[in-house]
């Protein structure tokens, strides 16, 4: 009933979008007319009425309407009262404020000047080295560690948003026993007896379940626990794991090795379903930088990227050639590729995808195999094949074999020991645990982090075993009182990584010390501290454990210096893994079992925003539009356009997915470029105990996931469930098109075209004097700030959006508000598609405020709340703004965002601590937009003037620029002809967005240049 109401409410909320585009009509429309060259949504491609209407509006329909439960009449009453008071607001008396100094001020602290500490964020066992900005010991912002080779200053969305995770008010705040509050002492007391009893049986009843552990100290601790209790067992499980990678390495080399790539040496990159340019792929931050550096058409050694993938990804969008292929067929592609070397004759047999019946892309497939092989052959030693983590072991083994054949090993491909300290098969490990639980062998179960009751494969029945096997002592250590905590008697609130000591390995093996930025907000304990307890050191702190371990590794008098240097730099010298040389056992591998090649395939993927569900309660990530669909707050079933047409489905239609007797009902979303006869679902949604942001968002896909086929399987049955479900996607919002027709906002050419006509992207600009504005001599100023965004480097990883949100205190608005277009992101990353719906090219374009010199927003503001500074910035003065929204209406780029409601949380104390003290927290009724990080500009200007110098090029970086892993954003002084931004703006492919309007934008773009294979282009 409630669901029904919700649905109805959502329909009311967004009446304009009620009728989703019907693909049949769309197809007819497309056939009849010539659509735009570049498009963002399928509605736009078809030129549907809804899209036309949206274009005419400043905000989507409904954004400016009063839709909340207060009636119009009630609202008027309220307004009457507030009008009467309005006159008095100018006379607001500031309350007296306390000011609290230190008792003994630490020496290094200068109040008002932030400090930066090096630490590391760990996901899936892999460390992302970061620097954390700290204001009076309050962490506020995460930056990349520019000196660490795994970061080079870049971060990813998960690391960037983890600061909100620490301040999350829904985190578990106490130790609990059966839901009642307990103390640490009480927990110790309860543990003592059973632990002593285990000593007699050598710990036969003890089971420890961790997530992937790369921490040397924790691994050492766990091993010493196993030494103390020889019969105890350490199980490892994480739903998004690398079992297949390690298994593939074992298949090829007989030992589990980690593969690293040096993409700066690669001229040709072939991705077999590897989304290596997005967060979550180990080393992605570094790979993005190396990839982007080789995408510079002006440097003359551009690489070429082929992507063969089973769902549209941002890596696929960056490719020069992309082939959508069902996940099961990628192994066949890999075998066909390998065959190109083995065959002696001229005619090389091609196996082709198993699902020939529905194989629409046969021609493309054959062409792709031969041209990829051709390109690889001519680039022996300077090419690389990368395989996605979810591909079966055989594909990984095949890639190892081909890389070996090509002589890439030692040049672009390197092998090391695994980063994972306990590289077991994690699904098997969990299966063993469940078996033991059911057999009654487990007396004490310690779940150190993770949420297996929610994210274990359905067929293992972990949650059921946990609930019903009567294990006398079940202990859960976690950040949240989640689904697993509910089924354990004891719950210990975990300290966040920003609150505790630890260590962790980056993708190349380099160890970073994780140091706390703040004392645990709720007195939480870390896995190190809990494990120390099991190892018999009752009161060991995380600091003692970690430092103690490294003291053993680095004995000697200089330990203090070593420790201080390691903490300062963010890594420990000499811990990078030595490269390993391994030899191939055989080049022929047993093919993976295939169920039914013709049946519909279902892909399970980690979510680009909430990962496996561990970031469910992170509002920044929930509201972050996913790279390709721009979906927020939900995980619809992705389906290709051709398949949707065949099944008569429209986006937002609810369907039943049935697999192995399990059924999930979820809406679908038509994703251009998705392979036919296959659907993709994302894990991590449908949480029941996540917190205020995560609980109830999206649909739980884990029930469909089996432990033997965790990543994809065929045979899913899809039936229309009837009804629709409102999805909140920002794709198509904030469109810059005009009713007269679309102007290409994103511009691209092939390398050859670019060489022939370098200035292709530029359009005729109106002469500067052709304006009614009074020109201001910006060129006479010391500084004129400008930005250049290289579309060629941008990989659409969304990191800039989260960095901006964190730096500028941008509010989260919630799903219903996103549906009506009230999201607040100052910086958006637009995705454009081009060409065939079934296999389009795709482009990304980050759009911040253009800081127009002739800003259309300024002249229409009746209260002078947006005005120009002498350095050319379009200033926004919040305290003057009265919320007419004329400026937004007049902004051709649609970058202004309006606080329709009080989106900021002004009450929660934790969130107050998190905010950047250098940026105003905006209230209701105020317009806001990108400021080019004016707080950073001002700070650097003050610092430089105090030191009697000018701001040096490169020292001042905006938040989006600083953490961009691709180095795609360059900001600086355009009055200095030698600055990097001036040089970039002088490159012929630099163009201004809607430059024909003579707005003279300070933000400009470097057009995208692709490097297609001439063989495939014809």
């Amino acid at each position, binding site marked *: 009933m409630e669901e029904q109401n919700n649905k109805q409410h959502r329909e009311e909320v967004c009446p304009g979008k009620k009728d989703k585009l019907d693909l049949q009509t769309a197809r007819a429309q497309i056939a009849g007319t010539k659509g735009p060259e570049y498009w963002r949504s399928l509605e736009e491609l078809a030129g549907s009425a809804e899209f036309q209407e949206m274009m005419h509006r400043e905000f989507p329909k409904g954004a400016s309407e009063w839709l909340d439960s207060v009636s119009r009449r009630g609202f008027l009453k309220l307004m009457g009262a507030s009008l009467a008071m309005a006159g008095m607001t100018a006379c607001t008396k500031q309350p007296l404020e306390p000011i609290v100094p*230190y008792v003994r001020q630490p020496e290094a602290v200068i109040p008002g000047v932030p400090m930066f500490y090096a630490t590391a964020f760990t996901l899936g066992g892999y460390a992302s080295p970061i620097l954390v900005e700290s204001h009076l010991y309050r962490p506020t912002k995460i930056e990349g560690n520019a000196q660490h080779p795994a970061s080079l200053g870049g971060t990813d969305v998960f690391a960037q948003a983890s600061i909100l995770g620490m301040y999350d008010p829904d985190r578990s705040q106490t130790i609990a026993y059966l839901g009642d509050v307990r103390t640490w002492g009480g927990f110790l007391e309860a543990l003592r007896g059973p632990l002593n009893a285990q000593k007699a049986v050598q710990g036969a009843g003890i089971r420890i379940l961790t997530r992937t552990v790369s921490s040397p100290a924790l691994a050492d601790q766990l091993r010493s626990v196993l030494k103390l209790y020889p019969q105890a067992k350490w199980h490892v499980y994480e739903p998004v794991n690398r079992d297949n990678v390690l298994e593939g390495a074992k298949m090829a080399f007989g030992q589990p090795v980690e593969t690293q790539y040096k993409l700066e040496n690669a001229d040709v990159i072939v991705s077999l379903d590897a989304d290596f340019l997005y967060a979550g792929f180990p080393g992605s931050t570094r790979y993005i930088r190396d990839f982007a550096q080789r995408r510079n058409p002006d440097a003359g050694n551009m690489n070429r990227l082929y992507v063969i993938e089973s769902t549209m990804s941002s890596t696929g969008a960056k490719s020069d050639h992309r082939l959508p292929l069902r996940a099961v067929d990628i192994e066949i592609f890999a075998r066909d590729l390998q065959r190109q070397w083995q065959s002696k004759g001229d005619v090389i047999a091609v196996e082709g995808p198993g699902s020939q019946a529905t194989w629409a892309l046969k021609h493309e497939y054959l062409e792709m195999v031969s041209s990829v092989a051709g390109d690889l052959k001519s680039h022996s030693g300077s090419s690389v094949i990368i395989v996605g983590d979810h591909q079966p072991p055989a594909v990984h083994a095949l890639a190892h074999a081909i890389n070996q054949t090509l002589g890439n090993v030692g040049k672009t491909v390197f092998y090391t020991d695994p980063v994972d300290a306990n590289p077991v098969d994690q699904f098997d490990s969990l299966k063993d645990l469940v078996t033991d639980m059911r057999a009654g062998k487990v007396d004490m179960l310690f779940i150190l982090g993770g949420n297996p009751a929610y994210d274990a494969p359905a067929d293992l029945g972990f949650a059921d075993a946990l609930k019903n096997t009567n294990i006398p002592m079940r202990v859960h250590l976690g950040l949240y009182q989640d689904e697993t905590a509910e089924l354990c008697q004891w719950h210990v609130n975990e300290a966040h990584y920003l609150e505790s000591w630890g260590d962790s390995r980056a993708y190349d093996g380099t160890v970073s010390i994780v140091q706390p930025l703040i004392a645990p907000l709720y007195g939480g304990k870390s896995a190190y501290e809990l494990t120390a307890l099991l190892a018999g050191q009752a009161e060991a702190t995380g600091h003692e454990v970690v430092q103690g371990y490294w003291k053993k590794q680095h004995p000697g008098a200089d330990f203090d210096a070593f420790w201080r240097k390691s903490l300062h730099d963010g890594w420990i010298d000499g811990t990078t893994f030595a490269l390993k040389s391994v030899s191939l056992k055989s080049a022929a591998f047993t093919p993976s079992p295939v169920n039914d090649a013709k049946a519909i395939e279902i892909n399970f993927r980690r979510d680009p925003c909430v990962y496996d569900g561990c970031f469910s309660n992170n509002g920044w990530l929930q509201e972050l539009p996913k790279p390709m669909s721009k979906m927020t707050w939900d995980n619809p079933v992705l389906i290709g356009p051709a398949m949707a047409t065949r099944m008569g489905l429209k986006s937002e239609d609810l369907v039943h997915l049935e697999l192995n007797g399990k059924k999930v009902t979820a809406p679908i979303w038509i994703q251009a470029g998705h392979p036919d006869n296959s659907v993709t679902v994302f894990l991590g949604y449908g949480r029941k105990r996540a917190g205020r942001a995560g609980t109830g968002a999206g649909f739980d896909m884990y029930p469909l996931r089996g432990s033997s086929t965790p990543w994809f399987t065929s045979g899913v049955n899809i039936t229309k469930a009837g009804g629709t479900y409102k999805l909140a996607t920002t794709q198509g919002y904030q469109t810059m098109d005009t009713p007269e027709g679309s102007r290409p906002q994103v511009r691209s050419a092939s390398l050859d075209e670019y060489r022939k006509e370098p200035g292709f992207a530029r359009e005729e600009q109106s002469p500067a004097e052709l304006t009614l504005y009074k020109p201001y001599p910006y060129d006479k100023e010391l500084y004129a700030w400008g930005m250049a965004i290289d579309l060629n480097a941008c990989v659409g990883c969304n990191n800039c959006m989260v960095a901006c949100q964190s730096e500028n205190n941008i509010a989260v608005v919630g799903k219903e508000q996103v549906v009506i277009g009230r999201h607040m992101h100052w910086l958006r990353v637009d995705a454009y598609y081009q060409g065939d719906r079934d296999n389009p090219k795709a482009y990304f374009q980050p759009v911040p405020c253009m800081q127009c010199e002739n800003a259309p927003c300024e002249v229409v503001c009746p209260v002078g709340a947006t005005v120009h500074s002498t350095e050319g910035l379009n200033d926004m003065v919040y305290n003057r703004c009265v919320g007419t929204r004329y400026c937004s209406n007049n902004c051709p780029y649609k970058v202004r965002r309006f606080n329709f409601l009080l989106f900021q949380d002004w009450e929660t104390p934790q969130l107050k601590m998190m905010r950047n003290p250098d940026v105003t927290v905006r209230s209701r009724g105020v317009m806001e937009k990108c400021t080019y990080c004016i707080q950073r500009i*001002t700070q650097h200007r003050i610092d430089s003037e105090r030191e009697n110098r000018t701001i040096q090029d490169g020292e001042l970086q905006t938040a989006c620029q600083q953490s961009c892993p691709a180095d795609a954003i360059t900001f600086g002084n355009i009055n200095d002809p030698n600055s990097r931004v001036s040089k970039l703006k002088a490159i012929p492919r630099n163009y201004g967005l809607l430059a024909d309007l003579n707005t003279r934008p300070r933000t400009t773009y470097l057009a995208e240049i692709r490097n297609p294979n001439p063989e495939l282009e014809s």
Partner: protein
Amino acid sequence: MQIFHRSTNTISRATIYGAVFLVSALLWALLELQRSPYITYAKVVRPQPVPFSHQHHVGGLGIDCRYCHTSVEKSSFAGIPPTKTCMNCHSQIWTGAPLLEPVRESFRTGKSLVWTRVNDLPDFVYFDHSIHVNKGVGCNTCHGPVDQMPLMFNYASLQMEWCLDCHRAPEKNLRPRDQVFNMRYEQPSSDKPVVLDGKVYTDQLSLGSDLVKKYKLRTVTDITSCSTCHR
């Protein structure tokens, strides 16, 4: 037929005429109220846990501003001294004074003293001490004769018009950098000239204009841009 007496004409004229004055007077009163110490707290002493006297410490003992406000030259925030700074002296002198008990208690227990903020700008204003001090704005230009204040109060209204008075004509207030922390500094006059780089100044405007150049102040248009203080 005449309903109203003729005298009502006069009354109505007087009323209409009077209303103009009445409304103006009301508006004037509101504006004055808004600028009054009732709203701005200007020259109003605020309650503090310890009746600390700047007059005694600065005027009497001659302690430099920076002994306590340590970060004034480096940070946006001048800094409030930690209890330790008080105890540097007060562990030796006035060790038993009952007035200082809260200070000793803070030092004993490790719990901070909670002062009431005196110079409190609205939260959307981002003021930076370091740059003002560096460009030759004296402490007492804004804070007033602190060395004569037994109990602390804010000297100026701290309203935007007051900030702009100086940002629109900085030459009116600048002084040589070495005089910034001098509480007894007086602007140059023919009686008390100021010597800078060997040049003798007898009026503030010529000194100020030369300092604007010497200290490379940004132009008035620059420093009256909104984003100078608001972000």
